[in-house]
């Protein structure tokens, strides 16, 4: 799978995620003096206040769902890197690394947990974040793969298909374009896709039209590049088709 092989580039899933805005803004020294409220500073204050108000609404609405976009409580840093940096350039602070922005994952438990924790992320939003579910079915290139708690650790490449999340009696289905799925030993599953749409938002008529168009393009393709593009279109549309019917 190459990154450019994804045809569904115009879709975007609109689910704005409001994360906890860090309240540790340190005001610059000149802002702390008592100045008469000018319209610009009032607007500035209102803007930051509006940004701060959003988490309250989000947490009320999302019923205190933990967000994967939160900054962690205990940042860590790679000490070897920091030391090497300090030796070479003692005057400049070393840059932060992603490790300090991520919450560490729990180690593999000794007994198999009852639920699997799913993180389903897209470039535009975190669709599911630390959600505990019973089972996930992912469309790997080798076929539909069911993931249960205690699944062996694996890395799976995904093809266009249907991802279904089973929680008790609810099943949520998404059609995803390609991506990757990592299943860790501690019953954590990370699914990264480029685009994902709930199945009820797909228009069957357009799917048929697209399929016909790409099949025709495939038969009339001359260069390898055109053939590859048409093949990708055919694959994706036929997957869509089977998703809608199956």
């Amino acid at each position: 799978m190459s990154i450019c092989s994804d045809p569904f580039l115009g879709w975007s899933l609109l689910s704005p995620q409001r994360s906890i805005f860090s309240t540790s803004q340190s005001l610059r020294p000149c802002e702390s003096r008592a100045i008469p409220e000018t319209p610009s500073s009032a607007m500035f204050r209102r803007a930051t206040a509006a940004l701060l108000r959003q988490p309250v609404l989000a947490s009320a609405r999302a019923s205190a769902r933990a967000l994967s976009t939160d900054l962690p409580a205990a940042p860590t840093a790679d000490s070897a890197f920091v030391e090497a940096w300090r030796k070479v350039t003692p005057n400049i602070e070393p840059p932060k690394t992603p490790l300090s922005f991520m919450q560490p994952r729990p180690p593999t438990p000794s007994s198999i947990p009852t639920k699997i924790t799913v993180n389903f992320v897209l470039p535009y939003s975190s669709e599911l974040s630390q959600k505990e579910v019973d089972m996930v079915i992912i469309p790997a290139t080798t076929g539909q793969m069911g993931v249960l708690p205690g699944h062996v650790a694996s890395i799976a490449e995904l093809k266009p298909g249907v991802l279904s999340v089973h929680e008790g009696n609810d099943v949520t289905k998404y059609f995803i374009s390609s991506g990757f799925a990592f299943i860790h030993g501690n019953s954590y599953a990370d699914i990264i896709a480029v685009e994902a749409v709930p199945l009820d938002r797909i228009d069957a008529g357009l799917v048929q039209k697209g399929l016909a168009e790409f099949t025709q393009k495939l038969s009339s393709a001359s260069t390898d590049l055109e053939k590859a593009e048409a093949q990708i279109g055919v694959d994706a549309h036929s997957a869509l088709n089977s998703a809608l019917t199956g």
Partner: protein
Amino acid sequence: MAMAALRREGRRFAPLLSPRPIAAVRSSLVSEEDIPFGARSISTQVVRNRMKSVKNIQKITKAMKMVAASKLRAIQIRAENSRGLWQPFTALLGDTPSVDVKKNVIVTVSSDKGLCGGINSTSVKISKALYKLNSGPDKETKYVVLGEKAKAQLVRDSKKNIELTISELQKNPLNYTQVSVLADDILKNVEFDALRIIFNKFHSVVSFLPTMSTVLSPEIVEREAEAGGKLGELDSYEIEGGETKAEILQNLAEFQFSCVLFNAVLENACSEQGARMSAMDSSSRNAGDMLDRLTLTYNRTRQASITTELIEIISGASALEG
């Protein structure tokens, strides 16, 4: 004697009078040529011109601040939504900034437009320090520069080390497609063992943290997995997929690079708007201070000229009376 004094005063003011038309346009430098023709006393024109230009500057910077604030609001939501994108990769592959490789490529993300405080200089400083850190015998380090501002600074002393420069990134609103095409370009044209992406992570409206993300090439991932340590557990993962493990790792590395680059570009754009907002805010505050000082000077000059006129009149009148 009063007349002699008056004549002396007149001689003192003579250089200020210049026989030139008032309608001529001139710059508002503090020079005596800006006094309009026919003014007979100390003129406030110079100060007035300066006040007008400072007031305009204040208005412009205030407007720029509001524009930056509204752009920040829009892009901050997108940047925070994209933060979940790189976390699975770090969870799987760990974070290895101190990995020892032969070919390093430093990808510096910066802005195209200026007036955004010191964030671009910070990125360039860190890139140069990283270059020094990774230099050694039979090691080579190259730059890939995104954005005009870093290019301008790096071209000055590291011109031969710059492999690729990309500008006008934000001409169209940032989206994943564009960044993945860009990532594809970089991966095709640049040989690397480790890619280090330097950007400013948006922590809050007034604080931007320089951050470095590392993406390893599939060969180095294999090497590190065999060596043990953070990536040692990678071998325990089963690879689901028809192709070989090497191909999957290759796809994984490419996907990781495009995801990490997307997040980096969004965070940097966010930091740019935030930095511009605070730079413009302090600029308009400075302009306000300057305007206050100029107003005082203006009033003093005005009052001095009124006093002088009064003195002239009164001494003239008293001279007439005898």
